[in-house]
């Protein structure tokens, strides 16, 4: 290598040095440390905060001795399984709705995106108020509807039954749903709430839609393709990279849901919203079981990694990249 090349390489390494240091200090090192910790018992709050090697005990406890682990895993899986498809289809539907040239479309787009900038804590507090069984906007509105229909009318009961089947009961003889205060409805209410922030995936989908050349649609129309055919044969294939991206981000995001569970329900009622990360956080920072919490964190990492890989591997079957065709 010439002297110039050596100098260039040296400068290059110097410029990326902050990242190398940061990556080692805050990512690589902690990952290794967390792997080691997962085989140890460690309580930093104890006077003699000792590190004790316990082998596979943490993992054994996770799978056989901790019902809350299974509960939190199933809660998170249920949340992901319902909210990801809702987010994907809802985000796409919104994007299709907003991808048109009508006056003031920018204002509509802004309105849909606005909830995204409030952040988890503010959104949680607002919806806690909206979901309040006795004073919340939603139940007051529903009560008015039931009053209008007549409390004992068949119509009122027909409306109340599916709502209560999904979102629980406010109290034993009420027609109103209990939302986050009922064990049956808490998780579903949080899923419903997640639809309020569809704006993020909407924006991504919208950008994907606008990148599809208009000529494709015009050509298809000349060939006699109807709306439905154009949607399934042009929009969906050309949008599949965007959908793929939203799916990967949805998997990574929904498995790490935390804020709503802590602020709105504190994991309850009866652990029905005890999300996986909430359970991990509590083990680490409330019960100071750092070793066990590390094992939990690593298991989550393995789940997310394998799901992401599954999605990525499957993508060749359903994601269509235009550049590959050429």
């Amino acid at each position, binding site marked *: 290598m010439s002297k110039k090349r050596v100098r260039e390489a040296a400068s*290059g390494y110097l410029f*990326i040095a902050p990242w190398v240091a*940061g990556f080692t200090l*805050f990512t690589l090192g902690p990952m290794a440390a967390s792997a080691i910790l997962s085989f140890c018992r460690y309580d*930093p709050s104890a006077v003699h905060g000792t590190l004790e090697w316990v082998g596979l005990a943490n993992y054994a406890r996770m799978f056989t001795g901790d019902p809350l682990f299974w509960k939190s895993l199933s809660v998170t899986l249920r949340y992901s399984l319902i909210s990801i498809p809702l987010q994907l289809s809802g985000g796409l539907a919104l994007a299709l709705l*907003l991808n048109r040239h009508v006056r003031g479309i920018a204002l509509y787009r*802004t*309105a849909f995106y606005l909830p995204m*900038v409030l952040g988890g804590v503010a959104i949680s507090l607002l919806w806690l108020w909206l979901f309040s069984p006795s004073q919340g906007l939603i139940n007051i509105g529903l009560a008015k509807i039931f009053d209008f229909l007549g409390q004992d009318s068949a119509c009122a009961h027909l409306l109340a039954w599916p709502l209560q089947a999904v979102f629980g009961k406010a109290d034993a003889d009420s027609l109103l749903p209990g939302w986050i205060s009922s064990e049956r409805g808490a998780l579903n209410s949080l899923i419903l709430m997640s639809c309020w922030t569809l704006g993020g995936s909407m924006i991504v989908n919208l950008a994907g839609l606008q990148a599809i050349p208009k000529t494709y649609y015009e050509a298809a129309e000349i060939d006699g393709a109807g709306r439905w055919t154009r949607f399934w044969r042009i929009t969906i294939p050309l949008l599949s990279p965007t959908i793929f991206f939203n799916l990967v981000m949805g998997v990574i995001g929904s498995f790490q849901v935390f804020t709503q569970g802590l602020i709105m329900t504190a994991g309850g009622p009866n652990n029905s919203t005890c999300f996986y990360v909430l359970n991990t956080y509590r083990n680490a*920072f409330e019960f100071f079981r750092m070793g066990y919490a590390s094992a939990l964190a690593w298991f989550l990492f393995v789940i997310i990694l394998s799901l992401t890989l599954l999605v990525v591997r499957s993508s060749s079957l359903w994601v269509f990249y235009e550049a590959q065709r050429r």
Partner: protein
Amino acid sequence: MTGHVTKPGRALRRLLAPLAAHAILIAATAVMLLPLAWMVSTSLKQSGIGLSRGIEWLPWRDAWTNGKETVDVMVLGARVAPGDGGEAVEVGIKSLASRRRFTTVYVPEGAFEAEIEAWRIRPLTGEDETAEARWAPFASVRRRVAPEWGNYREALEKMRFWVCLANTLAITFLGTAGTILSCSLVAYGFARFRFPGNNVLFLVLLSSMMLPSVVTMIPVYLLFRELHWIDTLLPLFAPAWFSVNAFAVFLFRQYYMTLPFDLDDAAQIDGCSALGTYWRVLLPLSRPVMATVGIFCFTHYWLDFMGPLIYLNTSEKFTLALGLYTFKGAYTTQWHYLMAATLAVSLPCIVLFFAGQRFFVRGVVMSGLKA
């Protein structure tokens, strides 16, 4: 859609289609914005009574007057009672200021039912009468819109807003500045220099974007504990100076790749060092990326909750998000305060969003990472 309009049906469709689109869009927008409107409405209401009166979008307030003095009251309900000269409509009222008693005056007047309907108050029967509640003629109670601006003052004071704001500003500013500086510098290294391992390291950097933060959370916490940084703001912004935001590095690198090498050569002929080229030529040119990354980081640090929750213990160090959370713990049912505080905390992000919407949208589109 530029075909000749020949059939009347088609003309009608062209007229109606935008109308239908607007109808759907307005309905959907209303559903999205209703919660926000309710938040604003709640934040301006009177405590207790204002919150329990059902769906009222404006902060109504009732006052009873006997001609000489005016007292804030709560209207419990209404009834039609026989008076001296016929039937009188009365409302059951309760003083809000003190436990003072009201004398009941019957004023004969007839057609108040419609007005009572407009007030949306339930009919009261004698059974509802309590020690504090008194009957008063409907005409002696006046209703007016009176926003409780004081809610904001009190809520901000109670949650120690200004202390939290100062901390949040410090973290947001230092975190954003650190991210922009360190990430653009590292991106410059990746984009402009050939060295063994350039591509592999960049791939490693990209894949670190996918890593869930939970995995590194505990050891990083222990690291900061060793440094005695717990309950300081340092753990919240210091990592930003080590270019931990892989997405920002990616954006800067992609942008530098589009800039011609001639720029670097010209700068070097003019006597710029490699660092000088970055500082004087490439960084100033990358303003659009700086804006995108800047706005992205601003919202990230402003809204971050888990970080402050883990690292901060004393309320002097709290950020706005954490302050809001602890405020909720202390004032669980005081929704007028809670909504006022929530709105105050969110307002800077909302303003920034409207000011820099272009960059916001670009950031989201490029990352899909949701704030």
